[in-house]
């Protein structure tokens, strides 16, 4: 059953087309990896699905669980079950990790979610979600907070960037946890070993999906650094 469906999405900024007739669908409980070189529109797509300020499709439809959500604001989409972990999570002064994890639901056990992302709860629960955390620690805490929300769709924008290679297994565990919860994941990544745990993958090139299907094949396509659809003429970034 389709949970998220993007129909012919275009998005322009000051006349420049960032996304161009992009279509993509993600089923319930599906982990869908999104590949593409820098500047091809992956994060823009994530912001459009989340409904960030200034990110509304110039044309096309974003359907979530059968509902058109183009005009909904972020918190309205969050209430439907969409959430997102940004590539570089912001810091919050004066908010303890414990409080951050229970922002929406005071009844969850924050320690459990910290352990799920490979952090020892006793060392982190009382720390602040501020500049005192390293980039990798902050990312893990963000992932824990997203897990704690039990979303229907989690958008993970490069969850592996800034996290040491040895900890890739932690990211894999997080994605598996979403899957076990029957949540769908839109996963933006550059790492092949992360792509391979997805159920499906798509490559974006120049603002549109140029290849979609088996993650292994899409990863091969990505590694070849040559867009067969555009044949190097349109894909300025490939």
């Amino acid at each position, binding site marked *: 059953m389709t949970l998220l469906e993007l129909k012919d999405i275009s998005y322009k900024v000051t006349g420049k087309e960032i996304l161009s007739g992009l279509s993509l669908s993600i089923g319930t409980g599906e982990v869908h990896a999104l590949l593409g070189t820098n500047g091809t529109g992956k994060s823009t797509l994530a912001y459009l699905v989340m409904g960030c300020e200034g990110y509304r499709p110039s044309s096309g439809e974003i359907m979530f669980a059968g509902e058109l959500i183009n005009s909904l*604001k*972020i*918190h309205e989409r969050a209430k439907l079950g969409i959430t997102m972990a940004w590539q570089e*999570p*912001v810091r*919050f002064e*004066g908010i303890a990790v414990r409080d951050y994890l229970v*922002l*929406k639901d005071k009844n969850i056990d924050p320690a459990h979610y910290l352990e799920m992302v490979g952090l020892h709860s006793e060392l982190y629960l009382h720390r602040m979600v501020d500049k005192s955390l390293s980039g990798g620690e902050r990312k893990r805490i963000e992932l824990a907070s997203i897990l704690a929300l039990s979303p229907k769709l989690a958008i993970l924008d490069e969850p592996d960037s800034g996290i040491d290679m040895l900890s890739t297994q932690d990211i894999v565990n997080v994605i598996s946890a979403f899957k076990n919860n029957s949540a769908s994941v839109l996963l933006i990544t550059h790492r092949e070993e992360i792509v391979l745990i997805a159920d499906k993958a798509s490559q974006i090139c120049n603002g549109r999906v140029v290849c979609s299907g088996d993650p292994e094949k899409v990863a091969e396509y990505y590694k070849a650094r040559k867009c067969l659809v555009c044949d190097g003429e349109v894909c300025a970034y490939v």
Partner: protein
Amino acid sequence: MSDLDALMKAFGEAGGDKAILENNEIAHLVASGHKLLSMKSVGGLEVDAKETLTGISVRVTVKEVVRIKNPAHLCFGVLHNKGTQRIKMDVKLEKDSSAHFIAHCIFPKAEKIRHIMDAVVEVGEGAEMRYSETHFHGLYGGIEVVPKSVVTVARNGRYFTDFTLTTGRVGKLDIDYSVEAGENAVTELTARVFGHANDAIKIKEKVVLAGENSRGLIKTRVALEDEAEAEVTGITEGNAAGARGHVDCMEIVKDNAVAKAIPIVNVTNPLAKVTHEAAIGSVDKRQMETLMAHGLTPEEAVDVIVKGILK
């Protein structure tokens, strides 16, 4: 109800722990308006307090090498809706002593009240003083708070102060703190204020790093809404080799509020270093989006962010 009971009732309603008055191991001083209501000292802490025509005069001495175990509580307030309370404080921490003072300033019905504090503080060699001041004001905004302190911190001394006014209306606030730090001395001044309606906030804090390797931090957090106005001046002077200072001011502005930050850094010794950062503006967009993606409404998100910076 006696004045003491009334003040302690207001103190309890503001979140204070009334049991501190009963505890023989905790020093306290309670004054309402011009009247001294209760006082208790502990070993090594000398307190000489007098009623004056306009308020209270207090002289506090922490004797050499004495470390006061529990924080000493100073509870000042005016329970009436009008009046003036002038507190004069002389505090001296002798060599290698330490103490933590917690001041509770309570004005629950303030309609036309002036609370003036003039403090002179001497932190002796190797001594450490912490001073936390929390205000509980009512909802009328008819209060003027004018705290002024001149502090000297001797060699290897440490001085930390934390001013919080985040409950009720601010009214008119005019802080003027000045600290001179000697060799290897450390000083940190923190202020957190939440202004509403037509509150007028003026904060001036100055740290002079006079001694070699002295350290200073001025940290100010202000949130403003409605028509409130704030002007924050953080001054740090680096006048000795190895001195390090930083001024960190953040002001969040909502509605028609107006904020101004004036960081002044002045270095007269080439081996000293002073830095500053000031951020004024509406609530950070990315922080808002992140919290909204967690399911919070925009109003809830602003509340969480503002409470965080004022914590």
